[in-house]
């Protein structure tokens, strides 16, 4: 998902850079305020860990392999602000040292992978945790949150590419969304397994702020939420309202991506209804159904991975 230089035009680069600078600046201030000095080196080490972990290849069917992105995992382990700083650091080093991701596209990459992926992932994680307690709930939450965050980051990336005029939205959106729906499943599984491994070995290492949602974190999350919404509103919303064509293929691909057709035949007639309004509705329904299915999968996985909640 690293966007190279040349794919993002001037206005997109400028807007993403401003939004990312505001987000990272806020995260740095927050970290400086709440992280004890003892844990400052942990940020650098966590960034090095994330970089090394991203290079661990997990076997996927058919001889291919996937790897971790990790924003949500780090957010669940260290808290959202620390995760924004850590992932931003990884992206900066990848950009300057290993030329992975462009210099002008750094703002876009930071927005997609550091801010959107970590913060939205963390929000979903907290929401599900609030509802499902215990380690089983946490494992479910992190798997689901990682999936959502991966797909959202991919959609935002597609929106930026389309806004730059590099790849048309009707091509970028279905391609990125479909591919990352599958990648997201792997991401969720790895994140949950790694989180569980850390939790079982050293539960004390998971930062307290990440464990107990204190009320003052609400304001922090609201600010991040506003920033993420602003970005999504700029990059994605214009296209969602004015799809000229390729809409049906998007909807169908969404349906296929979620394996929705055999399970939920009801929304299918919506595809045939002409008119943008209905098709957007169909895509939204398909997205919601897909999320529900992934959530069920995450729930099952939580049950399968964590045998008895009372023991832990």
């Amino acid at each position, binding site marked *: 998902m690293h966007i190279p230089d040349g794919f993002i035009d001037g206005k997109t680069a400028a807007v993403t850079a401003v939004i990312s600078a505001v987000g990272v600046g806020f995260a740095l201030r927050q970290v400086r305020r709440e992280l004890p000095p003892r844990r400052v080196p942990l940020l650098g080490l966590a960034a090095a860990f994330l970089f090394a972990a991203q290079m661990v290849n997990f076997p996927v069917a058919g001889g291919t392999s996937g790897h971790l992105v990790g924003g949500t995992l780090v957010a669940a382990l260290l808290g959202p602000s620390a995760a924004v*700083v850590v992932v931003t650091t990884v992206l900066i080093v990848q950009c300057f040292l290993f030329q992975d991701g462009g210099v002008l596209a750094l703002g876009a990459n930071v927005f997609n992978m550091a801010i959107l992926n970590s913060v939205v992932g963390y929000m979903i994680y907290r929401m599900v945790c609030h509802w499902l307690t215990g380690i089983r709930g946490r494992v479910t939450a992190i798997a689901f949150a990682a999936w959502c965050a991966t797909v959202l980051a991919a959609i935002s990336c597609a929106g930026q590419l389309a806004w730059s005029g590099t790849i048309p939205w009707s091509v970028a959106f279905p391609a990125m969304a479909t591919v990352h729906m599958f990648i997201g499943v792997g991401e969720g599984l790895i994140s949950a397994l790694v989180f569980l491994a850390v939790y079982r070995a050293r539960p004390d290492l998971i930062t307290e702020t990440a464990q107990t949602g204190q009320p003052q974190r609400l304001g922090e999350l609201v600010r991040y939420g506003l920033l993420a919404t602003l970005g999504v509103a700029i990059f994605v919303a214009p296209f969602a309202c004015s799809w000229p064509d390729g809409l049906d293929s998007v909807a169908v691909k969404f349906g296929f991506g979620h394996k929705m057709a055999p399970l939920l035949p009801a929304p299918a007639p919506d595809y045939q209804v002409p008119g943008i309004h209905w098709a957007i509705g169909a895509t939204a329904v398909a997205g919601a159904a897909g999320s529900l299915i992934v959530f069920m999968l995450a729930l099952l996985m939580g049950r399968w991975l964590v045998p008895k909640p009372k023991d832990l």
Partner: protein
Amino acid sequence: MPCRRPALQFQTERLVTVHWINHHHGRLDSPVHRLPAAPKLGVALVIIVATVLAPVQWRAWFIGVAGLLVLAMLLSRLPLFFVFRRLLVLSPFVLGVVLVNTFQPAGRDKWLAVAVKSVLCLLTVILVSNTTPFSQILRVLKSIRVPALLITTIALMHRYLFVLMDEAERMRRARASRTFMRGRRFHWRALATVVGQLFIRASERAERIYDAMCARGWK
């Protein structure tokens, strides 16, 4: 080493792929390496910004930048094959977009422009990052008033990146010499345990580093 590649199922490759890290040519010496870092980074940034923003019609600009980069590359004594391979390794995204755009009507000019721009920018960053020590890049970042916390984090990450990657490789080797693979499901869990353990070790190391930093007078 004989134990590098145990003939176990799914164990045909290293846990951590480090092949491209070993090819960092920061230690060579040449006129390009000796240039002061700040102007070099500034010029590189100007080149990248102008190349990205330049309209397609500015053929002369693209050719000029390409000529300048080739000249700098020859002066810097970086092995040509190395630079070429870095370009290839980093280009899958470019190639993918080129492929996607060929199916678009009237997309040919556009993809050519995108490909040229992104290769030129990539070449610029490859040149700069391989001819400038990382500590100097950090010093430049500090002088343009990037927050100190971010710089500390970047510096620590760069310092311990290779340490942690070695650690991951040692853990993989240790696990491979002690366990047999029972199938893909088991493999995922085993790898996740290794990654989790890597996080634990990183945290413990961070605490030791903090003590060491305090002992040396870090405020």
